[in-house]
C-alpha cells in the first residue's frame, strides 16, 4: 500500500469537511438537520469502507505513521463515534444560531485528528494530531456564542489546553535531546540498550502531563466538569468519547511501545494516578445535580478505570483498555443521545428535570437507564464486562506485585460509589413521578434508530462479548506484552 493509500480514511474525512464548507458557501441548506444526516451517512460509508482495509506491517512517512491492527481498531471506533455525534449534532442543530455547516466541518476535522492519533508512531506526528483535535475543540466547546457558560467552557479549555500542549512540546524536546529520536520504535530500541538520566525522566513526565490533560486524569482533570457542563451537548459527547479515546490511543502507543523498556519508571506513577483519578471522579460526582456535570465527573472516573488497565502493563490490560474504550463509546453516546432528546424538550440539564422520564418517554427512559447502568458496570450490559476485564488485568499483575491489590480494592470501592450516583439518576427516571403537566417527549426517527443501535450494542456486547474482545486482543498484540 502506498503512503497515500494508508491515510485514505483521513483524506476522506478532510474532503468531507471541505465539501461541507464549500457547499455551505455556494448552496446553503435551509434544513439544519438534513446536512447532519447526510454527513452521518457519508461517515457510515467510510466506516463500512474501513473494514476493507488490511493491517500493514510497514510504517509510512519515514516511520511516523502506522496502519496496524491497533490503528484500524481505533479508526473504526472514531468513525462510529463521529457518526453518532453527527446524528446528535443534527438533533441539536436547532439551538445553534448560525454556522451549522461550520459546526459539522469542525466535528469532521476533529475526527480527522482522532483518526491520525490511532496511527501515530512518532512524537512529531503525535503533536500534530493532538493539536488538530484540541484546537478544533476550543472552537466547538464555545460554539453557543451567546451563552456565557459555553464561552467560559471554551476559555477554560483553551487556556489549560494551550498550557498542556506547551508541556508536551517541552517534554518531547527533552526526550529528543536525551535519546536523539522522536520515533517510538527507535526510542524503544535506544532505551533498551542505554541508561536514562533525570533529563529523560523529566521529558517523559512532561509528555505524560499533556496526555493526562487529554484523558482528564488527576491532577489535570480540573477542566473536565466545567467544560462538559458548558459545551454544547454533542461536543461534550465527542469530548467524552472521541477525545478521551484519542488520548488513550496516544498514551498506549507512548507508554506501551516507546517507553515500554523503562516501564519501571512509570508504572508506579500510573498506578497512583489511576487510584487518585478513580477516587476524585467518583467522589466528585456524588453531590452533582446537573447531568452533564455529573457525566463530566463520571468521565474522570472512567479515565481512572482505564488507567487501571494501563498500569497493569500486561496483554490482558491492554486488551481490556481497548475493549473498554469500544463499549464506552456506545454507552456514553447512548446517554448523551437521550440527554439531548430530553433537554431539547425540557431545556433543563438538571437531574430533577428527568423526573418521571420513564413515563414521559419509555424509550428515552430505558436508553438513559441502560446507559447509566452500563457505565456503572451492571450485567448483562457491556460496561460490566469492560470492568471485569480491567479488574482481571490488575489482579493478574497483583499475582507478582502485591500493591496492585490495593488498586483493585480502590477500583471496587469506586464501583460502589459510582452506582450510587448513577442510581440517583435512575431514581429520577423511574421512581419519581413527572412534574404536573409534563408532556410526552417526542423522539425523531433517526434519533430513535441511533438509540436502538446503541442499546443493542450495549446489550449485545454485554452478553456476546467475543467479537469485540477478539478484535481488542488482536489489536493489543501490537504491544509486545505477555
Amino acid at each position: 500500500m502506498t503512503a497515500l493509500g494508508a491515510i485514505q480514511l483521513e483524506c476522506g474525512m478532510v474532503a468531507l469537511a471541505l465539501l461541507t464548507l464549500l457547499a455551505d458557501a455556494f448552496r446553503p441548506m435551509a434544513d439544519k438537520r438534513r446536512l447532519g444526516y447526510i454527513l452521518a451517512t457519508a461517515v457510515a460509508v467510510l466506516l463500512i469502507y474501513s473494514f476493507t482495509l488490511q493491517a500493514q506491517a510497514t510504517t509510512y512517512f519515514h516511520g511516523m505513521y502506522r496502519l496496524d491492527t491497533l490503528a484500524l481498531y481505533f479508526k473504526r471506533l472514531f468513525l462510529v463515534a463521529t457518526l453518532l455525534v453527527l446524528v446528535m449534532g443534527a438533533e441539536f442543530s436547532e439551538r445553534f444560531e448560525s454556522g451549522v455547516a461550520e459546526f459539522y466541518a469542525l466535528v469532521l476535522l476533529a475526527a480527522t485528528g482522532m483518526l491520525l492519533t490511532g496511527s501515530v508512531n512518532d512524537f512529531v506526528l503525535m503533536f500534530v494530531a493532538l493539536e488538530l483535535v484540541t484546537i478544533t475543540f476550543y472552537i466547538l466547546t464555545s460554539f453557543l456564542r451567546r451563552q456565557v457558560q459555553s464561552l467560559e467552557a471554551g476559555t477554560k479549555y483553551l487556556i489549560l489546553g494551550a498550557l498542556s500542549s506547551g508541556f508536551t512540546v517541552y517534554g518531547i524536546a527533552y526526550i529528543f535531546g536525551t535519546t536523539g529520536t522522536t520515533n517510538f520504535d527507535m526510542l524503544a530500541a535506544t532505551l533498551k540498550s542505554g541508561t536514562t538520566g533525570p533529563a529523560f525522566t523529566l521529558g517523559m513526565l512532561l509528555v505524560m502531563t499533556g496526555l493526562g490533560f487529554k484523558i482528564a486524569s488527576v491532577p489535570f482533570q480540573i477542566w473536565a466538569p466545567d467544560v462538559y457542563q458548558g459545551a454544547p451537548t454533542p461536543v461534550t459527547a465527542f469530548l467524552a468519547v472521541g477525545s478521551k479515546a484519542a488520548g488513550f490511543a496516544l498514551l498506549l502507543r507512548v507508554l506501551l511501545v516507546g517507553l515500554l523498556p523503562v516501564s519501571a519508571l512509570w508504572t508506579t506513577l500510573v498506578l497512583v494516578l489511576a487510584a487518585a483519578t478513580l477516587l476524585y471522579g467518583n467522589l466528585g460526582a456524588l453531590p452533582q445535580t446537573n447531568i452533564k456535570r455529573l457525566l463530566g465527573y463520571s468521565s474522570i472516573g472512567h479515565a481512572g478505570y482505564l488507567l487501571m488497565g494501563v498500569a497493569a502493563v500486561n496483554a490482558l490490560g491492554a486488551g481490556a483498555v481497548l475493549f473498554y474504550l469500544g463499549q464506552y463509546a456506545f454507552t456514553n453516546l447512548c446517554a448523551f443521545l437521550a440527554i439531548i432528546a430530553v433537554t431539547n424538550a425540557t431545556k433543563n440539564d438538571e437531574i430533577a428535570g428527568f423526573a418521571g422520564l420513564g413515563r414521559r418517554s419509555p424509550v428515552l427512559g430505558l436508553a438513559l437507564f441502560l446507559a447509566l447502568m452500563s457505565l456503572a458496570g451492571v450485567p448483562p450490559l457491556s460496561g460490566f464486562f469492560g470492568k471485569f476485564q480491567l479488574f482481571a488485568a490488575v489482579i493478574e499483575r497483583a499475582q507478582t506485585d502485591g500493591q496492585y491489590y490495593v488498586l483493585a480494592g480502590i477500583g471496587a470501592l469506586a464501583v460502589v460509589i459510582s452506582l450510587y450516583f448513577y442510581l440517583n439518576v435512575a431514581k429520577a427516571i423511574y421512581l419519581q413521578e413527572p412534574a404536573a403537566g409534563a408532556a410526552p417527549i417526542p423522539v425523531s426517527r433517526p434519533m430513535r434508530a441511533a438509540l436502538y443501535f446503541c442499546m443493542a450494542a450495549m446489550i449485545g456486547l454485554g452478553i456476546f462479548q467475543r467479537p469485540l474482545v477478539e478484535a481488542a486482543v488482536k489489536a493489543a498484540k501490537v504491544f509486545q506484552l505477555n
Partner: protein
Amino acid sequence: METLLIIAVLLPLAAAFLTFLFPSNKPGAIRALAILATGMSLFLTLYIFSQFDRQNAGYQFVTNAGKGIEWLPSLGVSLKFGVDGISMTLLLLVGIVSFCGALVSHEIHDRQKEYYILFLALTTGISGTFCTTDMFFFYFFYEMAVIPMYLLIGMYGSLPPGKHGRTKEYATMKLTLYLTAGAVLALIGLLAMYFAGGKTFDMVELKRNLQLAGATQKWVFACLLFGFGFLASMWPFHTWSPIGYAAAPTAASMMHAGVLKKLGAYGIIRLALPLLPEGARHWANLLAILACFNILYAGWAALTQKDWKFVIGYSSVSHMGYVLLGIATLNVVGVSGAVLLMFAHGVMAALTFSLIGFFYHQTHNRMVPDLSGLARKIPFIGVCMVMAVMASSGLPGFANFVSEVMVFIGAWSQGSTLFRVATICAVWGIVVTATYLLWAVRTSFFGPFDEKWNMLKDATTPWQKLPFVLLLVVLLTVGFCPRLLTNIIQQSVAAAVLKVEVAPVTKVAEVRR
C-alpha cells in the same frame, strides 16, 4: 436432558424479552405469560429432579459433557450449567418461589409490563447463579440479580412511615449498594483464584488445580466470606435486609428473602469451602460467632418490631444465622443442614411474605398492634399463617425442623467449646423466634375482632389459594420425608466439603515430610 436444564434456567429471561415486545396496555396477557414461563420452568425443574441420579454426587446434566458452550476462549470462559445435590435443591426452591411470586403479583396495577420484565430477569439471574458451573457466569448472574431488585422495590414497593423515618428509596438504595459492595469484594477473591488456578473459570477444574498457600487462602477466603456474607445478611452487614424486605412489593420480598439471599450462602458453600479449605478452617470460629450474633441479635431486634414485614425481615436475618452456623461447622451434617435450611427457610419466608402481602393489600396496614382477630374474617389466611409460624419456630413435621436439628447436630459434634456454646445460643434462638412470631400471630389474627376489618376478603378461588397451598405442601412434604432432599444434599456436600475434612491430614503429612 442438559438442554432442558438450560431451558429451565433461561426460560424466564426469554419470556422477559418477549414481554418487552408486548404492548403495555395488555397487562392480562403479560401476566399470563409470566405465570406460564415460571410455571413451565418449575415443571421442567421437577422433571429434572425426577430424572436426577440419586447415587451420583457430582454434577449432572452438564452442558456439552462438561465442556460447555465456548464463550470467550481467550479468557477461558464457557457457558455451562450443571446441577449436583446442592444446586438441585436450590433450583427447586427458585422454581417454586418464582412461580408463587408470579401468582401473587396480581396486586400490581401500575406499569405491569416493566414489573414482569424485572421479575423474570431476576428469576433467571438467581437460577443461573445456582446452576452454572463456570465462575464467570456465576458472577455474571449474581450481579444481574441485583439491579432488577432496585427497581422492583423502588417502583412498586411501599414503606409505611415509622420510627425509622426512612423511605422506600432509601431502603432500596441501601440494599443495592450493600449487595454491590459485597459482590465486588467477592470478585477480587474470585479473580485471585482464577489466576492461581491456571486461568480457568471452570469450577470442577479449579477444584482440581487450585493450590494456594495457607496465607493467601486466608485472605482470599475472607474476601469471599465477607463479600458473599453481605448478601447472606451476615451480622453486622445485615442492616439492609429488614428494611429492604419491608419496602419491597410482595413478590420481591418473596424472591429476595426466599432465594436471592441464599445466593450468598451458596457462594460460600460452592466456592469458598471446597477451593479454600485452609482458609475455611481459619475463619470457621469467627463465622460461628457472627452466626450467633445473627441468631440472637436479629431475634431480639425482631422482638421489638411492630410492622409485620419488619418482624419477618429480622426473623429471616436470624434464620440466616443458622445457615451460617451450619456452614461454619465444616462437617457433612452441619453443611447439609445449612443447605436444607436454605430450602426450608426459602419456602417458609416466601409463604409468610405472600400471606402478609395478601392481607396488606386489603388493609393497607400491617402494624401488628393495629390488627386484631383477622382470622375470623380470613380463616384460610389465618390457618396458613399459623402453619407458617409453626414451621418458622421449628416445629416437627416441617422441613425447618429437620434442617435446624441437622445444624445443631453438626455444630455440637464439631466438638470445640465454642461450637457447643454456639449450639446452645442457637437453640435459645428458637425460643426467641417462637416468642415474637406467636405474639405477632396471636395479636393480629386472634383476639377480639375489630369491626374496621369487616371488608376483608379471604382467598376463595383456587388460583388465589394455589401459591399458599403449594408452599405449605412443599414444607410438609420435605418435613415428613426429608430424605427426598437430604440424601442428595449430603452426598454432594460430602464431595464438596471432603477437601475440608481431609485438609488437616495432608497438612500433617506435609509436616512429616
